[in-house]
């Protein structure tokens, strides 16, 4: 098998439907942008809220595209071909989730300093906010992919996916937001960052097996 060609295929498909990819980004910008308008533009308050708001918005924006991760492949039969190919399914889904993160998660991470600025997040801590999202959003992508794999064969899975994976995403949110909050108040952030890193390692190594298993079960009927 050729990993580069598989990544290229997914990137090409993402490029051909790039307008769809803008939806989570616009959602992210809108949610973070509306908070100062709805609460109060007081800088001190915004500064306290910023880490939580940016993280919650990133988490929810990430959920938007998750359901479609395997849906179109399921409908047009590409998923059957994937399962029947001699290539190890676990590795193929690892590549798939990574590519999905590149086109949905990474843009959120890149936009996050702008949103931090909007919420009066201290510029000195901006790097830590970005690093926390850089470690956290791939974990969310992997968790979402597990849910997407389990629900791909179901007709009305729209609401099921968030219900399945939100409880699993809560630890990521807690450590991610606390990293950003601690950085803003000048406290050491090593501990929560290490936790995020450990969760990322767990996600990258274990989630592909769960995703592959979920896909096999979903296609068995």
């Amino acid at each position, binding site marked *: 098998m050729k990993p580069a060609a598989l990544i290229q*295929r997914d990137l090409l498909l993402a490029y*051909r439907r790039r307008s769809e990819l803008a939806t989570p980004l616009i959602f992210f910008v809108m949610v973070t942008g509306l908070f100062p308008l709805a609460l109060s533009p007081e800088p001190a308050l915004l500064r306290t809220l910023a880490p939580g708001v940016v993280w919650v918005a990133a988490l929810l924006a990430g959920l938007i595209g998750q359901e479609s991760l395997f849906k179109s492949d399921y409908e047009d039969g590409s998923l*059957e071909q994937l399962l029947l190919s001699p290539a190890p399914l676990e590795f193929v889904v690892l590549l798939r989730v990574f590519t999905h993160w590149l086109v949905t998660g990474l843009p959120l991470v890149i936009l996050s300093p702008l949103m931090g600025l909007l919420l009066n997040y201290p510029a000195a801590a901006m790097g830590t906010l970005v690093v926390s999202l850089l470690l956290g959003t791939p974990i969310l992508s992997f968790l979402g992919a597990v849910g997407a794999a389990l629900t791909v064969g179901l007709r009305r899975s729209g609401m099921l996916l968030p219900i399945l994976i939100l409880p699993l995403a809560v630890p990521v949110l807690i450590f991610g937001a606390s990293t950003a909050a601690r950085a803003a108040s000048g406290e050491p952030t090593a501990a929560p960052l290490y936790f995020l890193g450990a969760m990322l390692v767990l996600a990258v190594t274990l989630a592909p097996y769960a995703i592959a298993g979920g896909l096999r079960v979903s296609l068995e009927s």
Partner: protein
Amino acid sequence: MIAPITPPNALSVSNLDIWRGERCLCQSISFAVISGEALHLLGANGAGKTTLIRVLAGLGRADGGELCWRGQPLRESGAEYRASLAYLGHSSGVKLGLTPRENLTAAGALLAVPSATDATAALARVGLTQQADLPCSTLSMGQRRRAALARLLLVRVPVWFLDEPLTSLDRSGVGLLTGMLKEHLTVGGLAVFASHQPLDLEPFPVKTLLLGEVV
């Protein structure tokens, strides 16, 4: 006891039971398909042809019985079996957002070995030279089906599973498929296909299996 001699390319099924919910689709059926043979699955709509093909390909689960490839149970020869089969299902596995050529490249990327034929030659064979670089969403159903058939030409695998391969193919398309099948059987391949129309594969033996007889 003397072990039965299994020909090199043989798919054998013994006492296969398939249940879906409360319905029995087949009960203790046994058959074998060997090199140069084709098996034609017949049956009314809903008789379980697709389900049986999916079970044979390893996508679905059987409720009893054993499937053997080259004399080895499928459970043990998983990756090796997957490397030796090609499956063309109801949904053809063609991505509408990609061109036929990109579809073939993507299919080739999943193969264990480098593809034997290049995409241009495979597309020429199925008559899509003109459409090779158009998005599949702009192609007709029959042309999409041809793009899926091109995948069978990428690499020579011994087993073909074709589920309703004639769907939306025109007369020349049927000729193309028959030609491809005969070539496949000539080089020692075997094929299992479900179809409502008979396929003329003379001089190769075509076994038939009628599903839906069991209650």
